[in-house]
């Protein structure tokens, strides 16, 4: 018997290239490719698996957004400040819109900040499939992540908008009247869900027709007028308020003013309509998106 046969077999661990853990995960190692299911659903497990990509997409858009702008992130402070200032001069000073007990600039800022978030989220998510065309046609990942990442990105702007708003609140000495301040994030949640629902719908639409970029600005110019950005919804006749309630952003702004500025408690009947509309848009949008998802790479 020769010497070499007596030796233990060499360890092969170090000269073999190492794989990462992801594909050793027994759930994900085997992929079955089959026709798209007839009933669209959100595969949360798959989304969790792709969470790092989701994070990267958000991170990319946040970094790129203010790269090579002269003022950089300062824009996130300037835009809500200037918009509020213009509204305060035109509608507050000249047109003398009613504003109840709260100073008009603060009242408006509390509308401008969530509305600007919504406008950005809607625009970015609606165009997300088209702007990420190379990804859609070359790599697999759950496509819902594109509109989802797009509504997360402007939360950064919202954060800076909050600084402006809190600054205004300090100047005019307007503060939340109590515990309802904890509901403020919930109303932003409603804006996120609504923007995402419409984003799902419009991005599906945009994958097929390039009309969407023309539609959005028109929509976004009308929206603040019917959401109570430059006035308080409860200043208008009550029978009209019910119609406004079908616009989830009206609910967001009314609720936000109640939570942050100590304004009158919203009409909860109207609020439930706003919330229901937001959830309806989200569900509808998700269903439409998932139904068309398997064909995006073919039609985009």
């Amino acid at each position, binding site marked *: 018997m020769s010497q070499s046969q007596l030796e233990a077999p060499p360890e092969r661990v170090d000269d073999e*290239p*190492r*794989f*990462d*853990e*992801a*594909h050793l995960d027994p759930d994900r*190692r*085997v*992929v*079955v*490719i*089959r*026709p*798209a299911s007839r009933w669209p659903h959100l595969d949360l497990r798959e989304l969790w698996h792709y969470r*790092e*990509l989701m*994070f*990267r997409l958000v*991170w*990319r858009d946040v*970094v*790129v957004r203010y*790269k*090579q702008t002269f003022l950089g992130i300062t824009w996130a402070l300037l835009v809500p400040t200037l918009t509020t200032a213009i509204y305060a001069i035109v509608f507050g000073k000249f047109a003398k819109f009613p504003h109840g007990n709260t100073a008009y600039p603060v009242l408006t800022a509390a509308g401008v900040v969530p509305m600007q978030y919504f406008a950005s989220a809607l625009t970015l998510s609606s165009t997300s499939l088209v702007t*990420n065309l*190379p*990804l859609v*046609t*070359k*790599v*697999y*990942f759950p496509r819902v992540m594109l509109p989802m990442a797009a509504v997360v990105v402007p939360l950064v702007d919202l954060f800076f908008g909050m600084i402006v708003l809190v600054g205004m609140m300090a100047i005019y000495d307007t503060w939340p009247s109590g515990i309802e301040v904890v509901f403020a994030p919930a109303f932003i949640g409603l804006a996120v869900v609504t923007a995402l629902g419409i984003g799902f719908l419009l991005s599906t639409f945009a994958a*097929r*027709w*390039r*009309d969407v970029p023309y539609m959005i600005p028109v929509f976004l110019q009308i929206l603040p007028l019917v959401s109570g950005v430059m006035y308080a919804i409860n200043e208008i006749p009550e029978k009209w308020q019910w119609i406004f309630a079908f616009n989830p952003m009206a609910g967001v702004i009314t609720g936000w003013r109640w939570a942050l500025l100590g304004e009158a408690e919203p009409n909860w009947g109207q609020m439930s309509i706003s919330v229901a509309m937001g959830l309806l848009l989200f569900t509808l949008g998700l269903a439409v998106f998932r139904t068309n998802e*398997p*064909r995006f*790479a*073919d*039609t*985009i």
Partner: protein
Amino acid sequence: MADAIEVHELSKSYRIGQMQAAYGTLRDSLTRTAARVTRHEQPQGREVIWALRDVSFSVREGEVLGVIGRNGAGKSTLLKLLTRITAPTSGRAIIRGRVGSLLEVGTGFNPELTGRENVFLNGSILGMKRREIQRKFDDIVEFSGIAKFIDTPVKRYSSGMYVRLAFSVAAHLEPEILLVDEVLAVGDAEFQQRCLGRMEDFSGTGRTVLFVSHNMQTINQLCDRVIWLDGGAIAENGDPSGVVSHYLHTASVSGSTLSWTDDESAPGDNLARLLAVRVVNETGETVDTTDVRDGVGVEIRFRVLREGPPVFAKIKVRGRQGDVAFNAMDIGQMETPTAPGVYSVTAWIPPNLLNEGTATVDVAVCTLQAPKLLPRAQRAEAVAFGVVDPGDGDSARGLFTGQLRGAVRPLLEWTGQRLD
């Protein structure tokens, strides 16, 4: 050991309307719908193309499988289905192991981000985990050779640097199953070479590769087995040299050029071999369509292997129904014995002879053994080309726009006079 890839009756269909309206505006769609309703037209979307139909095969772990076929045979569709970019219409496929593909090189690179940032972004897009990218980061940068510029935005990179960095990320993906589409692989010859080199390294380590290519030499060299796709279905599945030679003998039926890369597979006997056939216009450019009013040539390149009798080329032209329009041969070469060497001859088909439609050409290199012709090297349906009539009124159809039957449609000279 389980198969790395199992494909069961996989099919993918496209509606023709779907492909045509890919860039339509909403208005186009609305007008089409309106037209359909008002004129009771058949919906255009009904016509279906099967890009892939009932394809079944499997790839063992560690096997290198080549996929060949003409353009439009379904090769790219197969890759798109296996990478899950698009979903199949029916059937299923099972993939065991992490899939990487060299068609994704540089996907998602953002010009505003730095090289470093793009490595992380692109790595995530290709399916790497953050920790994995961190671990491989130094290797990736070193392999790319652009360490000095790693913190510069990639929009300031030269295209070469860009590709190097992108390829470096893809090359460190270490998938268990690699899908390569040589047709889609971008970049210069050097880069293509690196892709191939990487693939060779890869197959050496016992991992599974699915390789789509037009380069038969590479296929022969790298693959353990070859699948030939034709019209969305598997025409043959087996040993590379066998499949490749069958493919070369039958696949290019409708092309306007055909050539044989090596003498072994070229048709012919111990006297003559066919080397290449192509359809040319009057200025010698390869064409696949000709105006009915222009002449068109069939260029035949062949090799005479030894001293012998006169060797001459012959063509047989068929019209769109497959019926023979005519035979013609190089009568000038029928008398003097042909010396060994490579010859190129062109048969010129005069203007206004062929009818409209697709003409196919059988070629042969013959000797004369009176009273018979003896084909020494031949290929049926070697090339094909389209004949079109723009309808300017000066062809054999004059002002007539209906159908004219016949394999040929010569422009004859007409004479006559009034008799009464």
